[in-house]
């Protein structure tokens, strides 16, 4: 059993990791055909991952409802919403509009999901303003620099700010293109090097946490 649980996954990871890292540099038709097939597998696995995610969500909330844990009512709402949408979606063949008429699924999408998600995003403006008033303070020199940069960028990104302080637009461009881009690039390079290191550790079997725990 140890072979199936440990050695086989490590072997598959090692072989596929090496083969597909090399594949990028081999433009032969056979190599390209292999990539086409494997990306199709990835799409299929992605579809199954979705089923796994939904099943897991159902399971977690079923447990909450059964045990009547605090906030179990929300889990019930989630169940009703998901099951209702799935049934109506299947009934409408997954289409929002058929023959120019909106289906029940389309109605749920357009008049429930779209406004609800939009509302969640829109109320951020209120919370950001409140949080900025309470915590955006020049407590140190570094905080003061951040505060000054934020005020300049906020001024320079809107027409009223550019109208009141004409220089703010150019100053904002400079901050975004020079200071921001260089720092972001440094962070990106750091993240990328980390990703390469982690990939090598996984390919060579040094990092094995993805195999999960359990008895060997």
């Amino acid at each position, binding site marked *: 059993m140890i072979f199936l649980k440990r050695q086989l996954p490590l072997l598959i990871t090692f072989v596929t990791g090496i083969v597909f890292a090399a594949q*990028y540099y081999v433009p032969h038709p056979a190599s*390209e055909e292999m*990539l*086409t097939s494997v*990306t*199709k597998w*990835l*799409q*299929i*696995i*992605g*579809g199954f*991952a*979705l089923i796994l995610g939904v099943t897991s969500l159902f399971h977690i909330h079923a447990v909450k409802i059964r045990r009547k844990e605090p906030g179990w009512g929300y889990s019930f709402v989630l169940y009703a919403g998901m099951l209702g949408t799935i049934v109506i979606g299947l009934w409408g063949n997954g289409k*929002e509009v058929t023959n120019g008429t909106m289906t029940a699924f*389309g109605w749920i*999408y*357009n008049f429930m*999901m*779209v*406004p609800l*998600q*939009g509302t*969640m*995003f*829109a109320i951020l*403006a*209120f919370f*950001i*303003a*409140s949080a*900025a*008033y*309470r915590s*955006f*303070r*020049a407590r140190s020199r570094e905080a003061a620099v951040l*505060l000054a940069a*934020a*005020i300049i960028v*906020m*001024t320079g*990104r*809107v*027409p*009223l*700010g*550019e*109208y*009141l302080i004409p220089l703010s*637009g150019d100053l904002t*461009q400079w901050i*975004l*293109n020079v200071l*921001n*881009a260089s720092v*972001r*690039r440094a962070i*990106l390079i750091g993240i990328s090097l980390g990703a390469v290191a982690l990939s090598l550790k996984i390919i060579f079997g040094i990092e094995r946490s993805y195999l999960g725990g359990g008895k060997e």
Partner: protein
Amino acid sequence: MSFAERMLQIDRRIIFLVIGLCTLIPLFYPVGLAIKVGPEVRGVYNYIESLPEGSVFLLSLDFDPASKPELYPQAVALLRHAFKKNLRVIGMTLWLPGTGMANEVITRVAEEMGKEAGKDYVFLGWSPGGSSVIINMGQDLYKAFPTDYNNQPTKDLAVLKDVKTLRDVSYVVSLAAGSTGIESWYVFGKDKYKFELGGGCTGVIAPGLYPLLRSGQINGLIGGLRGAAEYEVLIGQKGRAVAGMDAQSATHVAIIILVMLCNTFYLMLRKGQRRAGQA
């Protein structure tokens, strides 16, 4: 409790009211301040403008309804421009919750511009796999999307004539609210399949994409509602984004004033505490 302390602990509902009024009043009474077009947005516009008629333009609407206020106007402006230039438009999404919205915006703008589905444009819909969909499209577009959103076989569509892979696409623009989005289109798409790439994104993630812009990995970037408004100005069709800029101006200025006030009270408080400490 001193005046500064009281002001620092002001009821948050007052701040909510200020922001609410700053959003609503300019929407009812627009001022229409001039919008300056930046080089980032001009990059996308100029490239589309330079494409010959019949070129293939792929618009990937990689966002969900939460980002609709910022990215929907960008999509409308880009589609109007592409259809006006008589480009062949391919629409798709890598975000499942955005599928219906993406289909709606493409269909609506196409109808407005008198374009025909299957002949002038196609909406491919969504396919599972995230970034691997991009690679799959780069290898074989018909295998990645055997049918379009309306279940029509993609091989039979006139709009996709001679478009077998991403190598046959002239320009790709990803309108992204996060990951999977512009970075994925660069890493898994442009780098290997050599098409030109532009981006549009929410204001929050725009600063993070500047390294890609400065290095030429993307040739333009439409950032947030402001970017959408700039694009609307460029195509000469002012819409929702331009209408929203006054509200955004007012809220930005309100937040700046609030931050300045909070810091003034904070410094007053600190000065008072220092004096009390010395005494």
